[in-house]
């Protein structure tokens, strides 16, 4: 079994020639039955399994992943962690995730490299400043610290921004969240996998769901490429592929799947030590710990399951980047990719029991799932363990689309989606 990571274990391994390290998680053969099955080995699925074992003492759990863990959107995002949302329900949800992120490295005994470098959402006009002030007020009333930045403040945190007199999107100020930042995306997946595995969770990769086992109108397990696996509580956290599994289970979801692209430059010396988002340019940027400039933008506007992205959107994003930071015109792009995101009409997630009893949903995070991983895992674990919502997950149930109680966070992403 994997030992605890510490300065002492590092020192001992140094003396022993680094021969004692073990794989970070076990890869057992699937058992025929479990207490709970989690479909999807991304951040949300792995976190669900971890919190099932840790918070609820349910460790006979399998995480079933059709590819390799963290290979979907968990490995394809721009690693930003923030909680600058507008509505009280969203603040509770993303605030929970943000707080858990702050203690995650210690909790998991795995360095997720959370870097709370702050994030500024720029305002490019007097009208946007008024909306900015309204957002800051809403955040403060809901208990999340935020500041309204002046142009001088923005210049202090992002001096390389295009402050020239002829800038297409001049800076009037911004919304600043000092606790926002970035985390190492792979480490979040691997850290949850390792911690869950230590508590007894089976992580099973290369195991695709081919069908659900439905008996007496309830979900009793799954058929997979590695055989039938049964459990009376099944959670799914499969992001852009939620509709595909829903079709197998016999229902539809209020989701459209789109490609969301991102790209990174070659690594350069430290030049940007915060996260900058420009709604006008439709781009957000940070610099990774390795020095790469990490660039994200809006959705491809064509419903898609192709994990590659279309060129016109990439061109728009790069044009916006150069408007924000003309100095980046010298950069060479190193990689570009896309993840398939599950976009919901009100841009809020769906957490709750599906129309097929015993099958629970954690989906609809759209363009912002990474920042919510600890909360998504906590809430889906609570649903699987108790069969009931808690106060945080209740507003995000699928029933809001019939009742009309939508939580419209279309502006929450800061980019037109």
């Amino acid at each position, binding site marked *: 079994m994997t030992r605890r990571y510490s300065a002492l274990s590092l020192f001992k391994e140094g003396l022993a020639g680094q021969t004692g390290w073990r794989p970070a998680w076990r890869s057992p053969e699937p058992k025929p039955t479990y207490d709970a099955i989690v479909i999807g080995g991304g951040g949300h699925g792995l976190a669900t399994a971890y919190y099932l074992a840790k918070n609820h003492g349910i460790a006979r759990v399998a995480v079933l992943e059709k590819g390799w863990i963290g290979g979907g959107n968990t490995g394809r995002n721009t690693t930003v962690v923030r909680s600058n949302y507008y509505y009280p329900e969203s603040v509770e949800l993303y605030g929970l995730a943000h707080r858990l992120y702050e203690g995650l490295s210690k909790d998991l005994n795995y360095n997720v490299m959370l870097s709370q470098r702050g994030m500024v959402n720029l305002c490019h006009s007097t009208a946007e400043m008024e909306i900015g002030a309204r957002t800051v007020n809403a955040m403060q009333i809901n208990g999340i610290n935020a500041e309204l930045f002046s142009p001088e403040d923005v210049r202090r945190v992002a001096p390389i921004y295009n402050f020239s007199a002829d800038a297409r999107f001049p800076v009037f100020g911004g919304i600043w969240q000092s606790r926002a930042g970035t985390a190492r995306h792979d480490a979040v997946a691997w850290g949850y996998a390792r911690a869950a595995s230590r508590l007894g969770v089976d992580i099973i990769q290369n195991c695709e769901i081919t069908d659900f086992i439905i008996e007496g109108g309830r979900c009793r397990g799954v058929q997979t490429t590695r055989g039938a696996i049964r459990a009376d509580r099944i959670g799914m956290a499969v992001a852009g*592929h939620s509709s595909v599994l829903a079709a197998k289970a016999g229902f539809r979801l209020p*989701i459209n799947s789109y490609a969301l692209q991102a790209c990174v430059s070659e690594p350069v010396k430290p030049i940007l030590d915060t996260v900058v988002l420009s709604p006008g340019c439709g781009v957000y940027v940070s610099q990774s710990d390795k020095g790469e400039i990490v660039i994200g933008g809006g959705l491809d506007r064509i*419903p898609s*399951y*192709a994990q590659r992205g*279309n*060129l*016109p959107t990439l061109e728009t994003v790069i044009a916006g980047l150069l408007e924000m930071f003309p100095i980046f015109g010298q950069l060479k792009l190193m990689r570009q990719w896309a993840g398939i995101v599950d976009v919901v009409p009100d841009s809020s997630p769906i957490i709750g029991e599906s129309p097929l009893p015993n099958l629970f949903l954690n989906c609809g995070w759209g363009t912002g799932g990474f920042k919510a991983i600890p909360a998504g895992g906590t809430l889906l674990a609570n649903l699987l363990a108790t069969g009931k919502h808690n106060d945080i997950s209740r507003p995000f149930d699928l029933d809001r689309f019939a009742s009309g109680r939508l939580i419209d966070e279309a502006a929450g992403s800061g980019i037109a989606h």
Partner: protein
Amino acid sequence: MQLFPCPFCGPRDETEFHYGGDAGNARPDGTQVPIDRWANYLYLRTNPKGTTREIWVHMTCGEFFVMDRDTVTHKVLSSAALGGERAA
């Protein structure tokens, strides 16, 4: 840049088009429509992985049309002018 076939203008850049929803998603009619049917019409989507039949609008000419397309390969299978498709 992908080219989409507008039934009226021929092949044009993808950026000239806008997605308009599932084809055949007819608006419920009458005064006694159950709430679930409204939710079904307004929000629920088939969202298939593979071939799909969708309404698109070519924004430069303003015409709506039906396009059969593959959501994985992005290959366009056919496009046709709307002929009572919405009521189907």
